[in-house]
């Protein structure tokens, strides 16, 4: 027991000052898919993005594309669709007060 007592005493602090001091995640950490509307080709079909998404977080109709972070599993497959309208960002602070705020809608035109 004494051994653990000393070990506890000599440990440095491992907790950080988050959220006062921001925590950065490694580059390439897949936390948030972001849709870049300017990269969505208005002439082409947006279906491939919806097809890439297993849990149905991306829904596409004739007029619009919806991204619902509430359904996203951060797999990053949308970011591999040719056309590149989606990227994965390491920003992990996804919490919102209202689940509607998790939804992004992009309209055609």
């Amino acid at each position, binding site marked *: 027991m004494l051994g653990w007592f000393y070990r*506890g005493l000599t440990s440095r602090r491992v907790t950080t000052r988050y959220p006062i001091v921001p925590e950065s995640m490694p580059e*390439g*950490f897949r936390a948030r898919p972001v849709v870049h509307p300017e990269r969505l080709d208005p002439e082409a079909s947006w279906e491939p993005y919806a097809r890439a998404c297993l849990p149905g977080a991306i829904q596409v109709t004739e007029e619009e594309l919806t991204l619902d972070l509430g359904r996203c*599993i951060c797999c990053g497959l949308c970011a591999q669709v040719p056309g590149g309208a989606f990227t994965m960002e390491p920003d992990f602070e996804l919490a919102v007060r209202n689940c509607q705020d998790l939804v992004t809608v992009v309209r055609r035109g």
Partner: protein
Amino acid sequence: MNARAIEERLGRAPERARSGELWLRLRPEQLVYIVPDLVEGGGARFVTEFAAELSERFAIYVILDVGDDYLVLEAPLEAERFSSLVVRLPAAEWPEREIRDLFGLTPAAHPNPTRLVLPEGWPEGLYPMRKSFPREREVELAPPERSGPRMHEPVEGDGIFHMPYGPIRSGIFESAQFVVDTPGEKILGLHLNMFFKHRGMEKIFEGVSLEQAPLVAERVSGTDSFAQSLAFCQAVERALEIEVPPRALHLRIVFAELERIYNHVDHIAKHCEGASLNVANARFSILKERVLRLNAALTGSRYLRGVNQVGGLRQDLADPGVLLDELSSLEKDFGAETRLLKRTDSFLDRIITAGPLSREDAVAYGAVGPIARGSGVDLDSRRDHPYAAYPELAFAVATAADGDADARFNVRTEEIHNAFDLIRQAVDRMPEGSISAEVPVPEPGSRALGWAEGARGEEMYFVRFGEKGLLDRVKVRTASFVNWPLFPRTIEGQILTDFVFMEQSFALSQGGCDG
């Protein structure tokens, strides 16, 4: 046993489907004597039994581990019933009840033919794994008819009461219910009620594209994500004869062993928590967190999800230097903490003799992973049925004889040390080159097994492709599904105070069991 020995026993030669995998077609009534004969007489290990719906009929499959190979026995059924193997093979109890629930095939002469997987209130005569049951269908559950927990053959007597523990418990997100028969402190009997959160993972696979299917496998059991996706991808790669590039085979070792390390370290931290060693708990938890952060830095995912894909990997290792530096620091710190823990009496007193599992039970129930190895059963699919780059690497399989929580603890600490070494070997020998191969269009009817030794033991997948090259049947048999039925056997005669140690030393996944 090899293919020759099987032929001598059965009078018929199994067909070699590919390396490590033999197939033999039988009539259903032959299973009842051939399977127990191969197990009892030939020393084969019962891996699992499952059903599939072929175009016009159902078929029962039994997978056996016959030494160097896995043997799949296939028996197409004429009717919607088959003879139960349970009387001679207790390990078949859960698989056969699962077949009954999900396919509506009756295991004749099963000693306990009751519902296992489906919830109470699920309508009779509705079998969700049949092709006639659409994936999207929603089912209204009837209110349960009786109150109180489910118990099979409870211990009755003066002063004995039945104490339900769970399914909702503090600090544990997953749901399992343990009903303890006890006069106070001694545990006389334990009933396991699982499958509260059965998600129908096998059904979810059907029709999913091969790009997306590994994501489904990862979710079978969150803390075994890499082992699950590896076993699944290997099954598909074997079925489609995909040659995975050597670099990917080595990278898979790196990630599989990182997953083993964080799981085993977490298990030790939980043990320390149970023994109220708060400093030790904190320090092992810090080590676990460091491995998760290393995972995130290497792959973008703390739990190594989205890394495997059919044909290889989605991501390469950018800079092995980061990995090797952190690895040696982790190994040094882990060694120091473990040495101290192994000298801490208040810890050892709790785990030595707790939750003993006899070698006979481990063999009879087909236990896998550290639970089997802790009871002296020397099996490890990395060595016995080698895959990825394991055949090229040198490693020892850790075993212990005593079968108690201490034995399992020692097996796991040794496996952590071996894992560090395996990662270094894999990085040292890592060839340059591509990390993924092309995936051809699947032939309808092609099928194969795939497996991986995860932190909890052998994770076994069977895949079969149907018309249009879509996934038609995926059987998932996790290590947790095999090992859970042994838990009541380790606990009878023990005391309630030690319950946490017994549960933690099993360290099984609930999601992986529920499926």
